[in-house]
């Protein structure tokens, strides 16, 4: 219960810890941390009400670098730990920092169930398509055939699309951002923070040591506009340096078209992040480079009661209906008898 009406004005500095940041110089994680620290003070939430939970991996060092309550967990279990925190303390703003290995491989099960329950957590999945902390094995998002330390002849594992998984798991907020596009990343984090329910944000993150340039097609500014589709709710899907290309639906499949020669904006797909059916979000989540520009932004943002809210409501309703429980009455439930 905070009745503090005059919240102190916070800045990014208030969220800086006394810990040395130990990511490799040049790692994309720095950008994510910086944008996060920019966003946190703007949310109108007292600083002490933030909790960052993580698993294991480079991304999971995140809690040490934000001056909030933090729980550095074990590999893959951050969503489950965070669910416990949020269930017990719905008043807290709970964030999860995870990676492609942590969140989609060893912790895939928790990820799915957290999303379907719509626990009010903000999940930042740092996708660098590699295992960084263990020094360079392929991850569940590594492209097929990738040469890594554990796949000298190339991987034979088909990669997963993280946002498709989120669609399948009925996630109510699904977004993608890019470490290199800090403005847009900041916007996406803001939107995630504002969402009530599970907010799943896939962040393309460059691991400059073990998988450098994995997202160069999108990250390098010169050709970003050609390879990225920025999603805007209610707007046609247009991309390209000259904004002359768009996405059109051909049957049930998307296709890239060039505007002009009779092709107008009205022929293009219009983005609708709040569509009740996730068909569009699923389609977007499966559009990959080089065949398509890869969508960045909010794929899906819909409303559904949250798990923690419903759990709380059951407690309140039961208490209203039955009165606050009393131990003596609980003990007496069922047949009792006296011995004198």
């Amino acid at each position: 219960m905070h009745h503090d009406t005059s919240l102190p004005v916070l800045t990014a500095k208030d969220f800086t810890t006394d810990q040395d940041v130990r990511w490799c110089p040049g790692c994309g994680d720095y950008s994510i941390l910086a944008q996060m620290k920019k966003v946190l003070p703007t949310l109108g939430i007292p600083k002490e009400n933030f909790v960052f939970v993580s698993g294991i991996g480079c991304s999971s060092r995140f809690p040490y670098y934000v001056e909030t309550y933090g729980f550095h967990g074990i590999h893959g279990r951050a969503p489950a730990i965070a669910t416990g925190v949020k269930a017990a303390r719905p008043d807290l703003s709970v964030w999860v920092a995870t990676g492609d290995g942590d969140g989609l491989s060893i912790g895939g099960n928790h990820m799915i169930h957290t999303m379907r329950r719509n626990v009010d957590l903000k999940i930042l999945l740092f996708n660098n398509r590699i295992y960084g902390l263990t020094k360079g094995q392929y991850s569940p998002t590594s492209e097929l055939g990738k040469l890594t330390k554990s796949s000298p002849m190339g991987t034979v594992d088909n990669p997963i699309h993280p946002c498709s998984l989120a669609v399948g798991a009925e996630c109510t907020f699904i977004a993608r951002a890019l470490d290199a596009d800090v403005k847009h990343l900041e916007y996406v984090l803001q939107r995630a923070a504002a969402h009530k329910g599970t907010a799943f944000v896939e962040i393309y993150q460059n691991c400059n040591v073990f998988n450098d340039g994995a997202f160069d097609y999108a990250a390098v500014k010169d050709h970003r506009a050609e390879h990225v589709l920025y999603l805007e709710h209610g707007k046609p899907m247009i991309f390209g340096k000259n904004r002359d290309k768009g996405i059109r639906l051909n049957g049930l499949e998307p296709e890239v078209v060039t505007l002009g020669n009779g092709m107008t904006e009205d022929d293009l797909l219009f983005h609708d992040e709040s569509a009740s059916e996730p068909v569009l979000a699923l389609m977007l989540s499966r559009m990959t480079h080089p065949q398509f520009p890869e969508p960045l932004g909010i794929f899906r943002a819909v409303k559904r009661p949250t798990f923690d809210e419903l759990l709380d409501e059951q407690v309140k309703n039961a208490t209203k209906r039955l009165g606050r429980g009393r131990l003596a009455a609980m003990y007496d439930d069922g047949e009792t008898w006296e011995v004198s």
Partner: protein
Amino acid sequence: MDTLTKKSVQQLDEVAIRFCGDSGDGMQLVGTQFTNASAIFGNDVSTLPDFPAEIRAPAGSLAGVSGFQINFSSRDIHTPGDRVNAMIAMNPAALRTNIKDVEVGGIVIVNDDAFSKSDLQKAGYESNPLEDGSLSKYRVYRVPITKLNNEALKDLNIGAKAAGRCKNFYALGLVAWLYSRPLEPTIKWIQDKFGKKPEIAEANIRALKAGYYYGETAELFPTSFRIPRAKLAPGRYRKLTGNEAVALGLVTAAELAGKPLFYASYPITPASDILHQLSMYKNFGVKTFQAEDEIAAMASTLGAAFGGAIAATGTSGPGLALKMEAIGLGVMTELPVVIVDVQRGGPSTGLPTKTEQADLLQAVCGRNGECPLCVLAARSPADCFDMAIWAVRIATKYMVPVILLTDGYIGNGAEPWVIPDPEKLPKIEIKHPTSADASSFLPYQRNEHLARPWALPGTPGLAHRIGGIEKEDGAGHISYDPLNHQKMVDLRAKKVAGIVKDIPPLEVNGDPQGDLLVLGWGGTYGALLSAASRARAEGHRVSSAHLQFLNPFPANTGDVLSRFKKVLIPELNGGQLRKLIRAEYLVDAIGLDKVQGKPFLISEVYEKIISLLK
């Protein structure tokens, strides 16, 4: 012949009966009703439900047999009974799987209508045991239960199927007459249960009464039996299973601490009933979470504890194995959590519905690294209540995970429980640091019990990070410093060892010294106590002691052991406590190991005792 002649009534001290039939025959239900009636009547009771792992094995098959044993007595009893004095078998498969437990000369009542050729075949009988003389050692009563039951219900128009389903109550009525049990508690239960279906309630009540009157009027039974009330300690009682007791204990502990209870669990036999029970207590602020797996149940429990709840999870052996990494995280982050392990037959999937106590070493040692925590064990169904409160008390005082071991036998078994006065239960004092402590706050600074502060998110000025990587003493920063690691490992061990000062001393039943000490732990309490008492009553210098605290052991354990020439440790495992006791006290303890999915018989332990005294 005058069928209304009053039959003779014979008085007995103690009787063990067993209902058995197909898993669809409702044997657990009538067993429970018989137990309730006996407990309310004033007998001491102890039960042993025994059900198949298959939900519905083919009808009439050996795999589908379900049984329920009740021992009821005018004396203080501690086990469901070694030998069955009377058995009710609803079909040949039930007869075949259970007859070996019936005492010679014991009563065997069978449903005569269920012994057709095909029924016999399903049970693997080549000839009808009711006719081939193979049951001549027993007093066999052939009652056409199906026919008599249908006859009694024929004018109710509820259909043959629904009528047939009442035959378990017919059998219950018959046995209720045989042992002079009151029908009222069962009638009341039926009325409550089928309140919305009055015709079904009527049918069951009528079947119950018809069975009772059949016993009274038919020429079959020459006598009935009476088991006088037991002289139990004065108080108000209810019947409680171990799983119910754990649930009540956890809610009670949370109330004593003035905090909400969070209980996360993944369904697993035989622990699921704790989750079911707790999910009904939402008006106590209890939040239950059916997690996606065992790991999530444990991990969310840690998260809830971090948030400030009284946090617990429950499971059985294989689930405990899955939780172990997260339990290690609990040890490392020094969070107060309770893990209840209702042990079952292992290894792997093992015997899900049968009892065993083979998770002791898993609980004490089963994690990577030097990872000590507190281990407790309940010794009877009602004791689960007290031990659950103990578990929360220790966890919150020492900031440490506590594993509470129960087992399938005491988890599903029931006994009378003296209802405590909640006002008289000592409060659980919990102190959280506040903003006022901010200037001196360190997340891993220790108090006099070596516990670190339980600082809650939401408290201004106390923001800190916990985690599984080794932490610098006091400050709690990540630390790979060799000497700091040594220090932290030592501190965590010392903290757990220090719990000993809160633990009551190990009590000895019998003389404090002698020729033989029978030492046990967990659900074997009743059988061990009874066996040692029997030997002592015969003049042998035998005592018994039962450990409820297994890590650390009570302070006087070594002293108790040293006063006996021999130490016998009977266990439902391969000798796990024996290993710990030998390692800790260098005592050459002798084992009696049993892993058959069943509790000890008093006689098994007694015979071992006698053999060691020769």
